[in-house]
């Protein structure tokens, strides 16, 4: 996955709290869904922007996606839906190109055989039964065996019992699932989901997450948007963080964390002698803070790699046994909150 | 709200009570009336909402401006008096010129004014305040009435101003036009009331915009045609009285009654040959009935 070039970000009117720092871009950013050279990426976005008059909804975003699950993370109003609409050819970019499997997304109906979109708005015709709706989608997609495909899609989302009822009698979670079934009925290699877990209870959410991971394992490229960190952290192999229309970071969130060299990493250590260990660690140039609290030693360091190499020998030389060593801010939440400067 | 662990500041920007004087119910109702009137012209709602109402308003003004312009030009050549007497654009003929525009205005704007609050379920927000349901219904209907009144009466005022300015001196012009002024005011008030009331009634009972628009237009343009056909092809007193059920014909008859002319715009009215007061009575009854039914709707609607 490519990362965007560094660019100073002036505060954008209307978006208080625009990020003032940017991680320095490193071309060799590790990613869980690498796109090998010579292979056409499933989704390719090149310098795409979209504005409405004076309001910029998406601001110069570039990335490429391959197989696996990618999470599009950002607060409401960050441009996630706009970006997904552009990916699915429902919106034309004001600048830049969106390609799906090598073809330009806007204005080419042939891409719809290869993508399935689960939109956020509840845009399903209430007067059709679930089965009729899926069957209709199968027919319109010119699927080879529509009956079997319909049954399969409905079974996948576990709506076989309710498939005979009109959709207007469905709960919100059921509507989400029937939309997912409609997006799956033609077995697309690319899936785009806009806030798919909205309105789902925990059990349904777990089931859908498992489903998405299975499909990604089959080689599909799945992109889903969310503003809930836990969902993205649990499900996504890689993350695209958008804020105020800009791509703030991309890749595996742990790798992103490594890149934030201007922010100290925190570790928590439990050892046989915290105080002596603290004094010993403070002797190293990479460590610039140590705190003793609640029976734990909290260490701040600027260099993740150097610290991990140095902590064991230091403890051993001082004759201290380390019982527990944990990075404490290596979560998506801390990454995200840093990126958006809450 | 920020919480910084280092300095431990918490700023309470939350809800604060208010104990000062409060403006009363009449002010609130009048505010809603004013807001409804502005909304009817798309003011406060962005550019696209203004296209339909202002286009219709300008179209309704065109004949008046045209007439004033032509009579001014004719006045230069000394033909002014003759022209104004014979012009097809006069106070008593203006109602039939603009009736279609007024109907379109009602069909375009009434569903917006009455349907939106019901569709988005915000009525409880209104009714949990000092504003009562009756206030709401009357304020909304009143706003639509005023909006329609503008379309109906402003062109007539333009004609009056034109007459005043075109005459040798303003007082003479005013004197010439003065008998017509209370007449067209009365016709505008009653016709606007009837059309706005009917549109409000349909829009209040039909929240979905497309259906409301279609129903309003149907209610305005279909009865005159049916009544005209019946008057031509059927006979009997019942058929004559049916004229009073058609808003368009009632207004034609009203106009004729007040100005003392023949309602040659409506064959049904001419065929029915009903006394003048019946049209006035029908208008008044119609307005009252529509307003009462709108109030009834808002007394009973929930959510």
């Amino acid at each position, binding site marked *: 996955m490519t990362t965007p070039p560094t660019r100073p970000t002036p505060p954008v009117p209307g978006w208080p709290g625009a990020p003032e720092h940017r991680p320095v871009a490193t071309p060799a950013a590790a990613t869980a869904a690498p796109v090998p050279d010579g292979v056409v990426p499933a989704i390719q976005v090149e310098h795409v922007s979209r504005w409405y008059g004076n309001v910029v909804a998406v601001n110069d975003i570039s990335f490429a996606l391959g197989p696996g699950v990618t999470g599009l993370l950002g607060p409401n109003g960050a441009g996630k839906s706009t970006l997904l609409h552009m990916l699915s050819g429902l919106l034309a970019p004001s600048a830049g190109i969106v390609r799906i499997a090598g073809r330009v997304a806007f204005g080419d109906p*042939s891409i719809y055989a290869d993508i399935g979109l689960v939109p956020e708005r509840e845009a399903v015709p209430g007067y059709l039964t679930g089965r009729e709706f899926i069957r209709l989608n199968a027919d319109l997609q010119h699927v080879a065996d529509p009956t079997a495909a319909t049954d399969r899609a409905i079974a996948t989302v576990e709506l076989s019992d309710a498939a005979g009822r009109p959709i207007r009698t469905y709960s919100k979670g059921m509507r989400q699932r029937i939309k997912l079934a409609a997006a799956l009925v033609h077995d697309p290699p690319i899936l785009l989901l806009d806030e798919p877990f909205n309105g789902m209870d925990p059990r349904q959410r777990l089931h859908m997450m498992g489903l998405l991971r299975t499909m990604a394992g089959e080689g599909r490229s799945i992109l889903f948007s969310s503003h809930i960190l836990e969902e993205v952290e649990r499900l996504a192999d890689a993350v695209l963080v958008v804020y105020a229309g800009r791509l703030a970071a991309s890749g595996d969130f742990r790798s992103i964390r490594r890149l934030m060299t201007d922010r100290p990493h925190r570790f928590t250590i439990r050892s046989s002698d915290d105080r002596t260990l603290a004094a010993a660690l403070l002797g190293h140039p990479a460590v610039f803070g140590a705190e003793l609290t609640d029976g734990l030693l909290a260490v701040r360091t600027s260099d993740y790699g150097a610290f991990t190499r140095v902590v064991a020998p230091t403890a051993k030389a001082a004759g201290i046994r380390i019982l527990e060593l944990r990075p404490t801010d290596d979560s998506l939440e801390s990454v995200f909150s840093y990126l958006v400067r809450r | 709200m920020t919480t910084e662990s280092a300095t431990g500041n918490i700023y309470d920007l939350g809800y604060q009570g208010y104990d000062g004087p409060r403006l009363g119910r009449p002010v609130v109702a009048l505010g809603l009336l004013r807001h409804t009137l502005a909304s009817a012209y798309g003011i406060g709602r962005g550019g696209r909402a203004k296209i339909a109402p202002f286009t219709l308003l300008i179209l309704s003004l065109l004949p008046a401006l045209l007439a004033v312009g032509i009579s001014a030009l004719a006045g230069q050549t000394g033909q002014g008096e003759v022209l104004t007497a014979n012009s097809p654009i006069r106070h008593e003929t203006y109602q039939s010129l603009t009736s279609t525009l007024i109907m379109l205005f009602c069909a375009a704007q009434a569903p917006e004014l009455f349907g939106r609050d019901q569709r988005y379920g915000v009525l409880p927000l209104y009714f949990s305040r000092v504003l009562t349901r009756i206030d709401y219904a009357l304020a909304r209907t009143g706003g639509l009435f005023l909006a329609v009144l503008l379309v109906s009466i402003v062109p007539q005022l333009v004609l009056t101003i034109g007459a005043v300015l075109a005459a040798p001196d303003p007082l003479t012009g005013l004197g010439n036009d003065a008998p017509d002024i209370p007449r067209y005011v009365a016709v505008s008030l009653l016709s606007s009331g009837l059309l706005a009331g009917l549109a409000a009634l349909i829009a209040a009972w039909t929240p979905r915009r497309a259906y409301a*628009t279609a129903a309003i237009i149907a209610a305005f343009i279909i009865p005159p*045609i049916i009544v005209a056909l019946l008057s031509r092809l059927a006979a009997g007193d019942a058929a004559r009285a049916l004229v009073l059920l058609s808003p368009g014909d009632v207004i034609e008859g009203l106009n004729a009654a007040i100005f003392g002319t023949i309602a040659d715009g409506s064959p049904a009215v001419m065929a029915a040959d009903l006394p003048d007061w019946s049209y006035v009575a029908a208008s008044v009854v119609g307005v009252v009935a529509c307003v009462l039914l709108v109030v009834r709707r808002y007394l009973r609607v929930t959510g």
Partner: protein
Amino acid sequence: MTVFGALITVTLRALLGRRRIVLMVVLAALPILVGLVIRLGGGRSDAGDILDALVIRTVLPLIALIIGTAAVGSEIEDGTVLFLLLKPIARWQIALAKVLVAAGLTAVLVVPPILITGLLVGGSGSESIALAFGYAVAAILGGSAYAVAFTVLGIVTSRALIVGLAYTLLWEGVLAGLLVGTRFLSIRQATLGIAAQLTGTDVGVDPLAPVVAIAIVAVVIVGGWSLGVIALRRFQVRAGD
């Protein structure tokens, strides 16, 4: 089911919602009711009058308007158009299915009342049957033109109903009467021209020659459908979705 068949089916089912059917049936029944009243009331029987004034000039455009603006317009409004557009189907096919259903449904709703009213009021003589059939043919052609035009209007603007009403009431109703040269831009005049040719009745001021009228209808149908295809190709979700 074939792709095209599925398109037709879903458009039909979307249009035939319960409330819309009631409204359209009521509109379609009006001429029949009026005919009944006249027949039972023993008045003069001039079927051409009713069919001209009530049906061709009023009921036909209204029904075409309601059906046409709903064919695509209502789907755009509630968002269900997406699941039609997110399919690998050529846009001309989608547009064709929509206008076919709109025109067909309009014809189905308008022709029976014309025939019934014509026979009710005019009796069952051959002349009356010819009159009714003449108006029916004119209504099919003109109604199709209206339906296509209003369907495309529904794709292009969200206020299709008002624009369509303004066209029918202001343009065709008022202006075309004032400015004789605009006859060529009026579907109503084309319909009346065809009716005049087929039935020999007097439809008012200088009706259009049948060739011209049919040409106008053809231009509206083909041109409208083409515009619809272009509009569908350039369709984008509205801002804020």
